[in-house]
């Protein structure tokens, strides 16, 4: 049985510490979700901060940590949808800078980096809904049912979007990938 997590009324340093702990626990996950949706770090940070604001103001209890996590993901995705950009404001950034390759295995690291870069570029080209399900399935390792719950879609729709997303990736990526 999951632990019940209640957001106490703001009072004292203990609560502040607890809040900061929750922020530290979830911020990376939410930032990555938002960044992959919005393709812009400032907007992604804005969304994540706003999500935590809503979290702090929320008075309802979570049934469990899983419930809390699902709530965070759902609210973040909703926030990203509302901030979805048109081509007019596509001031997307390049992919994140990476550390310099070490001298050892330089060629291998460069090839690996290029592969990851190409993959992320193709992920960003996917329609937003496919990006969402691909990320939640492959990175957050959520089930189709769980993805359906946080995105508000039927499991069959999620499966269909996963399939179509994979098909588009297969078509565009030169590398052959195994997609289980």
């Amino acid at each position: 049985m999951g632990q019940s997590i209640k957001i106490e009324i703001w009072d004292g340093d203990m609560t502040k510490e607890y809040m900061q702990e929750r922020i530290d626990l979830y911020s990376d996950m939410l930032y990555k979700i938002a960044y992959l949706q919005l393709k812009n770090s400032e907007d992604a940070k804005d969304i994540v901060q706003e999500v935590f604001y809503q979290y702090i103001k929320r008075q309802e209890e979570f049934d469990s940590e899983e419930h809390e996590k699902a709530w965070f993901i759902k609210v973040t995705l909703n926030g990203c949808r509302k901030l979805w950009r048109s081509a007019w404001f596509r001031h997307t950034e390049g992919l994140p800078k990476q550390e310099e390759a070490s001298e050892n295995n330089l060629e291998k690291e460069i090839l690996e980096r290029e592969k990851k870069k190409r993959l992320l570029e193709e992920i960003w080209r996917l329609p937003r809904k496919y990006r969402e399900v691909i990320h939640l399935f492959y990175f957050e390792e959520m089930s189709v049912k769980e993805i359906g719950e946080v995105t508000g879609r039927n499991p069959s729709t999620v499966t269909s979007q996963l399939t179509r997303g994979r098909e588009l990736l297969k078509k565009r990526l030169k590398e052959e990938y195994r997609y289980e």
Partner: protein
Amino acid sequence: MNDFKTTYQNAVSDIENVHIDLDSVLDEGRRKRFKVHRKRQKLFTAAAAGGIFILCTLGTSQAAEYVKTVIKANEYGFWSGDMLTMSRNTSEQKEAGDEEHALAGSMAGAEWEKELADTLKMEEDELVIESTEGETREYTSIEDFREKEDAVFVLPDLERMGYTADSERVWVNGSFISAQLTIGEKYLIFDRIDYSETKTGHASSTVFMGGVCNERTYITGRGYEYLLVDSKEKTEEGQLVIHAAVSAGYYEIYVDFFGFSEEEMQQILEQMDLSYYEPGKK
């Protein structure tokens, strides 16, 4: 064969980690800026239902026979185009099999409304959006924009009117420039589109979420006639939104007033000297 999951996880893990501070989460100033920024983007975002901005820059090899641009209003927002080039381009594009441009070119009069209705039924990710190429440059002050860009972009002298802007942002993308100014609880959005480099006439349409009403005109002391409409829906804060549109020279200018009265809106329009957009007048 590579494993997609492993590669994807490694790629995403390379995305920077961020530290979010509790104080910044609770900072009301940040929240206010975020809300204003979000409203701004909503107006110019192609959404599944509601506001769609589709700019059509139809290109052919023929030189433009420029016919005076007319901005009109309908129940959704504004649209513009000179009929001669729009009708010519529509037939040419259809022959070329360019369905996307044909859709854009046919957006005039009664056909426009039908096309828009069909477009609104499309899923968000299937929307066809015509846009300019190239990156968007963003500036966090008008001063910075003026220093680094040499484009003509007329803005009112708000200080002269007793207003002090709390924040200023300017975006430049090709022939399109947009500025957002926040003044307390009110804010302004100025957009201008330059058609002087297009090879044909131009056509554009702006749709506001919830539709518009109360169409009217206002003629400034300088003789420019603005077409005005109100958004049917107020903002979340209960503000009235007035939209103004005018063309001058090869430019189209749109101004959105959030939380301003009719009188205040007129005063601001009076401050805008649109003769800068007309060659030979300045």
